[in-house]
């Protein structure tokens, strides 16, 4: 089984270190809005990370299905954007149920850091783990997102 990012909202402290680590590892700069995962610090009770599930839990709201030019592909369980084909139309950003598809000149997204995810490394609380996908954890995040 391919390992995935798995979010554990009850362990998230809302510190947002993972977002910073994500963009500095990828772009050498910090921009929370460009992070390929998002921490929601809603109120005193609720903090949670929202991550890309690489087709595991998106259902019909799937960037792969909706991309009008088939620029997003799932190859062996890893979803990636083909920059050559991407027209930056923004459809994937709109449909992404976890709000983690990103767009600048082209769409971009979580690449699992080639099997050593930076966000996981920088979360000492275990709020994001790299392990066998757990659909129930993704459902938990979807429910929390639905409340916003």
């Amino acid at each position: 089984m391919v390992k995935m990012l798995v979010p554990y909202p009850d362990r998230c402290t809302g510190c947002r270190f993972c977002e910073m680590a994500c963009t500095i590892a990828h772009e050498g700069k910090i921009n929370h809005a460009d992070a390929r995962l998002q921490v929601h610090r809603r109120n005193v009770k609720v903090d949670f990370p929202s991550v890309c599930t690489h087709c595991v839990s998106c259902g019909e709201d799937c960037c792969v299905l909706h991309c009008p030019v088939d620029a997003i592909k799932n190859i062996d369980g890893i979803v990636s954007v083909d920059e050559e084909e991407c027209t930056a139309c923004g459809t994937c950003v709109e449909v992404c149920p976890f709000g983690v598809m990103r767009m600048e000149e082209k769409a971009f997204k979580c690449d699992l850091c080639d099997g050593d995810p930076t966000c996981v490394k920088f979360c000492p609380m275990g709020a994001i783990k790299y392990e066998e996908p757990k659909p129930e954890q993704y459902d938990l995040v979807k429910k929390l997102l639905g409340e916003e």
Partner: protein
Amino acid sequence: MKGFTGKILKIDLTTEKNSVKTIDEKYIRKYLGGQGFAVELVYHGVPKGTDALDPNNVLAMAAGVFDGYPVPTGGKTIFAGKGPATGTLCESVMGGSIGAELRHAGFDALEIMGRASEPAYIFIEDDKVEINDARDLWGKDTRQVPELLKKKHGWDVKVACIGMAGEKLSRIACIDCDDRQAGRGGLGAVMGSKNLKAIVVRGTHDLEPADPSGLLEIALRYQKIMEAAPSFVEDTKYGTGEFLGWVNKEKGVFPTRNWQESVFAEREKIDPYYWATRYVSKNKACFACTKPCGKLFEVKSGKFAGVAIDGIEYETLYSLGGACGNADVESVARANELCDLYGIDTISAGVTVGFAMELMQRGIISEKEVGFRLTFDNAPDAVPRMIEMMGSRNGFGDILADGVKAAAKKIGKGAERYAVHTKGMEPPAYDVRGMKGHGLAYMTSTRGACHLRAGFYAPELVGKFWRWQGIDRFSPEGKGAMVATMENFMCVYDSIGLCKFSRGFFLIEKLPEVIKAISGLTFSEEELLKIGERIHNMKGNFNAREGVTRKDWLLPPRIIQDPIPDGPSKGSHITEAEMNKMLDDYMVARSWNKDGVPSPEKLKELGIE
């Protein structure tokens, strides 16, 4: 120069005009960032003799050097202004994410002047700056305000706001962001006096560190160091109150029942070792903190069912717990929640309630005046009830809403004898009768009695710090120079924007590496300490200019006249001679005159005008 944005945004609420001041490397070498920037803005921006609640007061907000960058526990935002509680230059630090967001919007600091004609909030979205109508937010608490503003502007904006206490100009009102507070000194009332309910920021710009991969390596290295330290387990399991039992049993310096005792006999009921497993469902962190001491504390049943707070911190366990004789942890949590919602500092609020309780114990105030039994033995009911009255300036709460000094003056009848404060600020949770250098630090702290301007509790309780060994907490010897040095350190940490709980990991000599990775600028340890000294001298000189000198620094009668009655520190107190000796030593160490005024030579040496 990387790391910094090089811009300070200035907003005048009276004229509704804003401007941008650019800063260069010279400015950074002089003031560093965070507290240094905020203090500079207040020092040069507030005209002499300005009342803290006058429109001419300045409210500064600044991001620490590390703020916005991935440095573990380096996400602090610093507020400053002339403080309503003391009339001195007051800074207050919070772990909310608004400072980092401001940096993403393109500014290292914000200076707010003037007064809006109607309740207003500031909305900053990168270059766009708006002053918006906040009449519908007036009267709302610190959880309602961000909720309403996020509904309007999007869930990703960051909101710093005041509660009702700040609107009502309570001199112990705080500023809230992300359930974290810039608590001390009443800066919430400065916002209130400006008719400013909230500051809302969305920043979308990139932050580019000078050495991204180096910074990431530093971050991981420090994170591992922190995770391996015993304090990681303590903080994540029990929070800052972890050592409450130790401070009581081993050291006997936990001020209890308005400092009438120094060991809280019922402490086990408010000790995190008791409550963490029963009430805490998860950890809460400041922005960029990978070593969270915050706890989501929830009460699920009983009289206080529904209470949910980020707490309870050590200081609050003292102020709303021990200082009031309150051994009901659910009541402490409820009082903490009310402080947060109304937006008042838990330390000052709790100490003020404990003070009033002693007054009732001594017959100086009556049950009739107050409206109910405000007594130590009735604390579980009385504390939350009085906090609510203070937050809304209701009944007797109006008298207590400005802290002990103002309350003692209003009450008269010798109440001042029992008011524990320096410069008008209520003290934190260390009985300085048994830690004399920390007593000196309560006096020399530029914002009034404070454990964090020098952080001297740690060297005295542990007996060592940095390059010092064998520190005797009962002795006044050598404390003047040590406290002065520690104050300089702390000015550096608050300029860096680093959590003071991490000072043991990031000793002063460790900082240049991190600063360089962020900004590309090379600083030596000596340069950093010189900046710290400069910042402290600016605060000292501001205070002297406002007429606050040595005569106003002195310890209250309780510390001088009433020895600790029992426990491991029994019999100890700071005598008048010891107090004066420590102050004399301190002035020499600072090159200040006997009255606590910085010498012209020292100011010149530090380039302070």
